[in-house]
């Protein structure tokens, strides 16, 4: 249904194909970028405009049980931010946890065409896929939470590594996930079973548990690398948010050796200082390790001042934050698999810790030597909404603006980081890397994040403006799979996007071990647990080494 199209006269930023602002024709046919099209093709004149591939969000929380709990929890956060319908598009509501339709359309209005939901308990996978079908335009996938899975812990503890490999692959297949996610590995059991306690050290073992977080992390990194998933384990390290946690982060990265690993929202894991006291920045130490280890990718999890919603599988962390916010709080335990904490939150310029978090995120961007391995994210909605991405881009591209903003924040915090000394300004090409080309490469999505022949025709066309916040928040055209979704800032049609997932090989025999465990400890039947194909609507399988 998508027409052929020729986009002319625009400045193209396509770093994967080494195109840095040259005026170049982009041709589209059947939803793909092609060499040339016939003369009948629709022509878009992009004179004075910047052309990039559609944006790719590698880490956000936009669908599923925890997001929906957050929506139900906070009507006040959406009441002032309605998302009206058009003849083509559905209505919704926004805030930091927008409804599904609003989330899809709003990503599109920023020129983003792919977004990955970063934390889904296996038992919540079906729910996520249902929400995905109601999340329009963007392509999406999700990471399945396996780092606190009791069955898998037992296998690691008993050194049944072959079965562990099989069971991980089984779970990924059963849930239609894109990769595995670890969140505060080893932290759920003390939370649920030991009066809301937590692990605090990557090598911590207790009297009745001989399994340390490091052993869990190592097992997952090994199996995923062995099976060659397109995206490595997506790791939320232990000790998120605690002063002194950069040691844990460094140790987590060291555990990977030279195997691939992705460290999520690394800003929240780059703090020095003593536990329980104010943190200081250790961005330089973290950036140095990442710079020197090409096996590591990360996303920043930038904090942006204003409203946010904390939603995390790291339940103990949410409880700590509840102590600060003193407001309403949700805890939601998932049997044998996961925990979850949710609360409304706001980052404020005058608060030392919040300013330091903001500054550390910026430091990490500015100290990074390889933009391909550091991805722009706010850990939406934890650090702030994805709707703040244009402002974040301006902070990175415009030193003068950054200095103005620095005047408004807690000055004491600025003394404990290197932000005031950093003069770097990101180029448009570097922005194209950290918002598209880089995340697409880290995800192993070969048809995303670039405009070479064969790529998906996901294209964003911005008016070139001095004010980069304005520029990146108002693309003139957004084209998804060759269809013009937005033209002259108006929605022209609607579409569903597809689901990306992987199907690593496994031996069915693993079900003989899984079934009795399910019968004993789960509350739904084993045969009703895996998600069947009907929930995939439009989908694409990305190949693993073993699929």
């Amino acid at each position, binding site marked *: 249904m998508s027409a052929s199209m020729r986009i002319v006269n625009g400045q193209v930023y396509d770093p994967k194909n080494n195109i840095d602002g040259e005026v170049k024709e982009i041709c589209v046919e059947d939803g793909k970028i092609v060499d040339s099209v016939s003369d009948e093709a629709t022509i878009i004149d992009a004179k004075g405009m910047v052309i990039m591939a559609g944006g790719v969000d590698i880490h956000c929380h936009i669908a599923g049980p925890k997001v929906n709990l957050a929506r*139900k929890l906070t009507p006040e956060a959406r009441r002032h931010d309605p998302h009206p319908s058009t003849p083509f598009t559905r209505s919704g509501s926004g*805030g930091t946890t927008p409804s599904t339709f609003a989330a899809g359309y709003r990503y599109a209005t920023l020129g983003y065409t792919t977004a990955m939901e970063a934390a889904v308990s296996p038992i919540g996978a079906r729910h996520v896929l249902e929400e995905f079908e109601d999340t329009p335009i963007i392509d999406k996938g999700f990471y399945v939470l396996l780092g606190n899975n009791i069955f898998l812990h037992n296998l690691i503890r008993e050194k049944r590594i072959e079965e562990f490999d099989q069971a991980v692959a089984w779970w990924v297949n059963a849930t239609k996930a894109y990769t595995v996610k670890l969140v505060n590995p080893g932290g759920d059991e003390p939370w*649920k*079973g030991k009066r809301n306690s937590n692990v605090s050290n990557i090598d911590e073992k207790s009297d009745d548990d001989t399994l340390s977080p490091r052993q869990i992390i190592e097992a997952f990194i090994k199996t995923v690398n062995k099976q060659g998933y397109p995206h490595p384990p997506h790791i939320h390290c232990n000790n998120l948010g605690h002063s002194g946690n950069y040691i844990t982060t460094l140790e987590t990265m060291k555990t990977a050796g030279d195997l691939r690993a992705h460290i999520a929202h690394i800003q929240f894991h780059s703090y020095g200082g003593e536990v329980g006291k104010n943190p200081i920045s250790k961005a330089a130490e973290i950036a140095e390790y990442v710079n020197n280890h090409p096996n590591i990718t990360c996303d920043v999890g930038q904090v942006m001042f204003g409203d946010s919603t904390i939603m995390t599988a790291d339940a103990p962390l949410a409880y700590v934050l509840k102590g600060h916010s003193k407001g309403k709080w949700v805890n939601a335990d998932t049997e044998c698999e996961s925990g979850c904490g949710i609360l409304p939150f706001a980052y404020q310029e005058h608060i030392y810790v919040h300013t330091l978090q903001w500054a550390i995120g910026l430091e990490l961007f500015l100290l990074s030597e390889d933009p391909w391995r550091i991805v722009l994210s706010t850990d939406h909605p934890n650090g702030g909404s994805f709707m703040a991405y244009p402002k974040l881009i301006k902070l990175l591209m415009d030193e003068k603006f950054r200095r103005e903003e620095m005047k408004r924040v807690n000055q004491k915090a600025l003394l404990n980081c290197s932000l005031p000394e950093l003069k770097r300004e990101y180029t448009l090409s570097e922005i194209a890397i950290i918002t598209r080309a880089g995340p697409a490469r880290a995800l192993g999505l070969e048809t995303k994040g670039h405009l070479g022949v064969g790529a998906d025709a996901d294209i964003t066309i911005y008016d070139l403006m001095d004010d980069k916040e304005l520029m990146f928040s108002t693309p003139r055209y957004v084209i998804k799979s060759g269809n013009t979704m937005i033209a002259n800032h108006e929605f022209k049609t609607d579409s569903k996007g597809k689901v990306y997932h992987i199907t690593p090989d496994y031996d069915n025999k693993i079900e003989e071990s899984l079934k009795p465990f399910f019968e004993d400890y789960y509350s739904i039947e084993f045969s009703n647990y895996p998600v069947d194909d009907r929930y995939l609507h439009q989908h694409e399988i990305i190949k693993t080494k073993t699929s």
Partner: protein
Amino acid sequence: MIEKTNKKVVEENKNIKIVHDATCTFCGCVCDDMELHVDVDEKRIIKSKNACVLGRAWFAEHTIENAPAAMIDGKEVTIEEAIEEAAQTLVNAKFPITYGLSDTTSEAQRQAVAITDYIKGNIDTTTSVCHGPSGLAFQGVGESTSTLGEVKNRADLVIYWGGNPAESHPRHFGRYAVTPKGMFTPNGKKDRTVVLVDVRKTKSAGVADILITPKPGKDFEVLWALRALVKGVKLSSDIEKETGVPLEILTDLAKRMKECRFGVLFFGMGLTMTRGRHFNSGALLALATDLNEYTHFVAKPVRGHGNVTGADNVVAWQTGYPFGVNFSRGYPRFNPGEFTTVDTLSNGDADAALIVASDPGSNFPKKAIEHLKNIPVITLDTKTTDTTKLSHVAFKTSTYGINTSGTVYRMDDVSITLRPAFESPFPDDEKILKSIKKRVHELILKNSHSGGASGEAKVAAAVNPL
């Protein structure tokens, strides 16, 4: 003699199909371990192994009835005619309302919200007349909660408040919360203390180790006293006069709550629909939250209908709000008390109604039913009800979980895919609603572009001039 033998052979040769791990959608327990024996020729379930008494009746009663699939004003019409009439009615209304949704699949619920969005109507579910106050309390204080499997594996203190699961959710005790053996509760009931708080001694009292009977309408006061005791506040023994519960009993319960390893508070409509309503639910949720300072504690409303939890979820993910949502301004607004169905009907606001899988005609306040009788009503139901009888357009649909697959959400938000037992000649809710949606959208696009370019032409026009 010969005849008798023959008869026996015929019975043995009956075309019986067995469906394993089917799901019972009668109540919010959504037990998914049914073994259904289906007489394929007669199209009925002759045995439902593992089902409780309510489930057995549910499966036995849903047979195929000989009735028209669609009616307008009581006269049989084709489904197509009924869809056209339903769509025209909804599009032409100024304040159309959609209601019900708790006994159908989430796939159908999604279509119903879409229709309401397109017609700029009002959507509400049976939540507004059952656990709606819990939803409001949730917005106020949050909730510490868990899936039911976690209760089975870990809970050593189980409290039921304002509910009678022995009769309303008969398998709740055996499957999830009282007797099952779990990971850290290897001895089942022996590893748990069970407390029942209710104004009267119900059939559920049988499982309780401790039975507490407050004065009717005093739940809030009892919960607030417990919150105080948990925090170490000293109370006067006058509390007994106020609540009907002696201070020693309350002190003992507060102690047990703080000392347990994993506690759970289940609560029912005895709490949410009596004096205090969302204050009651809020007090209970706040008590569970408070207890997390000392131990791990969760709370959970015991939801009624098979997929009322799905209705909350679908309405929430599509609009941002769980129930009582109005689209008249072209975007969702949430205002229980104004946009909840008892109110839109009693106040005389609604001028057309789409009722899906629910029977407000039999259980709503008189004033609301009177108004329902005066406006065009469109119903989708598996059975003839008081509401279908007063309908302008009535669709007879197949039964979810028996004739059609789809998704339901258990009371703890765990979703399950249904395994149907036998086919029905009637279409399912999703199919009818999808057709209405398609027609409604066509009519609206036609209206919005009347005299101008069609939608598609406009898209092309927007791209071409450049």
